[in-house]
């Protein structure tokens, strides 16, 4: 098997008695954008700092391009980082910031360095601001200085710690696409740490969801969203309705479950791990649930009445009371008009239905 570009092997990190990272193993391919996603304190930043060399793993090894990084100090690693605070040197101009790392490239001539700085400034569209001091530029520009500075030495791996967290919402969307296009042009492997699931889904080729120092699931954004492997991942990415359920039997390609909360039986997507009689969790995303006045032909159909509804314009969120559960359903307001826009109103009796393929069975 070919050696992967970056291989993290059984890495753990403890600070005293606190275990920040627990036995993490994963690989990242060359040119990939890989996201470490999780809430605060999940260990994602510690993992990033171990990649940069600021922390040594307590156990386990990190291989970059086949080289064991143990004991290699940060200044000798071909890995650069874009810090969450951007960490722009406040006493240097934009130009000097971007060129700072290049002074360690002994083989480069002065002219080459200047050319490289100019190229980087051009890449992030900061050429007119080259002579400015950091306090004379905006937050978005500072973010680009940090990016250009980290890319100037052509790192093998670029680490981005919450790259968009300090920007306002409008700028964030724009910057997301800019980051992706810069990554495409430079071909550098990106590892992005973020707590924002939308950011991870848009940016990354693959995502590792972390919780309490452990990696819960690794996969493409679609895999993580459509096929979560645990209640934690299902709940962390997007919103979800979950119900206690018991496996009744296998009806290939489906599983039949008894779901007391919905007051009936449900056909769900089969998972190999489930066995007959087992207690499992059934998860259904709100937008996968169809809402109608009449019973649909779907295998999974249940009647309830609308308890609450929130109108968002393009869609509405309904909270529907069933015998022993409250179910959230998203419905697009496709029709025009003030009254007719809604599928149903308060206290209306409605039918909820979902495809077996949308019913996720979570074991454990």
């Amino acid at each position, binding site marked *: 098997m070919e050696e992967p570009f970056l291989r993290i092997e059984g890495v753990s990190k403890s*600070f005293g008695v606190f275990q920040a990272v627990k036995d993490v193993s994963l690989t990242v391919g060359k040119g990939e954008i890989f996201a470490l996603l999780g809430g605060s304190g999940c260990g994602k930043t*510690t993992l990033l*700092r171990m990649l940069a060399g*600021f*922390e*040594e793993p307590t156990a386990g090894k990190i291989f970059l391009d086949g080289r064991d990084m143990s004991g290699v*100090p940060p200044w000798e690693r071909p890995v650069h980082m874009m810090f969450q605070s951007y960490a722009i040197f406040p006493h240097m101009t934009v130009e000097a910031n971007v060129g700072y790392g290049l002074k360690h490239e002994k083989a480069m001539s002065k002219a080459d360095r200047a050319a490289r700085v100019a190229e980087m400034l051009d890449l992030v569209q900061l050429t007119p601001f080259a002579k400015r001091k950091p306090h004379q530029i905006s937050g978005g520009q500072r973010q680009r200085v940090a990016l250009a500075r980290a890319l100037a030495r052509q790192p093998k791996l670029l680490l981005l710690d919450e790259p968009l967290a300090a920007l306002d919402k409008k700028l964030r969307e724009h910057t997301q696409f800019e980051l992706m296009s810069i990554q495409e042009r430079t071909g550098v492997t990106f590892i992005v740490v973020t707590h924002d699931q939308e950011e991870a889904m848009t940016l990354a080729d693959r995502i590792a969801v972390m919780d309490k120092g452990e990696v819960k699931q690794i996969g493409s954004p679609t895999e993580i969203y459509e096929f979560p492997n645990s209640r934690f991942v299902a709940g962390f990415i997007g919103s979800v309705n979950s119900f206690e359920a018991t496996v009744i039997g296998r009806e290939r390609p489906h599983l039949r479950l008894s779901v007391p909360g919905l007051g009936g039986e449900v056909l769900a997507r089969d998972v190999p791990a489930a066995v007959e009689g087992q207690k499992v969790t059934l998860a259904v995303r709100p937008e996968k649930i169809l809402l109608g006045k009449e019973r649909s032909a779907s295998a999974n159909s249940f009647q309830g009445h609308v308890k609450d509804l929130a109108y968002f314009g393009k869609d509405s969120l309904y909270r529907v009371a069933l015998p022993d559960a409250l179910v959230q359903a998203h419905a697009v307001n496709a029709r025009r008009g003030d009254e007719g826009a809604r599928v149903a109103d308060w206290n209306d009796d409605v039918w909820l239905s979902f495809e077996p393929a949308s019913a996720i069975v979570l074991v454990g």
Partner: protein
Amino acid sequence: MSTEGFSRWFDRKGWVGLVIGLPYVWLVVLFLLPFLIVLAMSVATNTPTAPPFSFGGEHPWINLGAYERIATDGLYVRAFLTSIFNAFVSAMLCLLIGYPMALGLTRVSKSWRNILLMLVILPFWTSFLLRVYAWMGLMGKNSWFNGLLTDAWNFLVPIDWAVKSIPMMNSNFAVVLVMVYTYLPFMILPLYASLERLDPNLDEAAMDLGSRPAQVFRDVTLPQSLPGIIAGGMLVFIPAAGELVIPTLVGNASQPMIGRLISDEFSQARDWPMAAAIAVALLVLMVVPTMIYSHYQAKAEGSK
């Protein structure tokens, strides 16, 4: 996050050793060692030699005589009481004058505030000695200030009580007055810092809930500025208790404060063990206010 990494890398080149070691050794040799010598000196015996002490070659090696005298001799007990009293009264007066001044500073416009703050700090940078000296000029018998006060006194009291001038110099009153004058900025600045941080919305919320301004001050402003009050109070009390210059220049020689006593025992009586013992006793006296200060200082900074 962990900071062990930083020193770990420095260690490779011995930089940590240099950066820590140089100031460390300096302070150990020129501060700690002299202090330890004073500590040892306080239990030595005074002798008419040069230098005037000896650690008895015979019994008793440890001579607690000096400490015994501090506890029993009226001169020393009085000096300690005078110092504590003067320092305490000064701290109180600084609080009474400094609190409204600090509060007033938070209520003026921003440009005025910077100018006034600069005027509070300005005396800091001028000579301490000359600030004391300025009051010597004002308090003297023939000065315009004393004359003004004398006239006011003679106007207010019955004719038999009239005086030619008010005897201000060389008294505890003069010591307290000048200590208030020189240490007032120490009170105003921490108070201002803690008052300035207060959220004005809290005042408004209290008023909105029906409190009158005086009640707002009592219920909201005052409790929140307590760490600043205590920090400022200790910042005045601590140096005031050990003050030497002010009591020497404007104080009453027959009612010395501890600082002056230490200096006199050392230079005039040439009783080094006695001077050392008083110094140690003064430091012990300061331990408690210092601990209170650092506790509230941390609190005042923590509430940022």
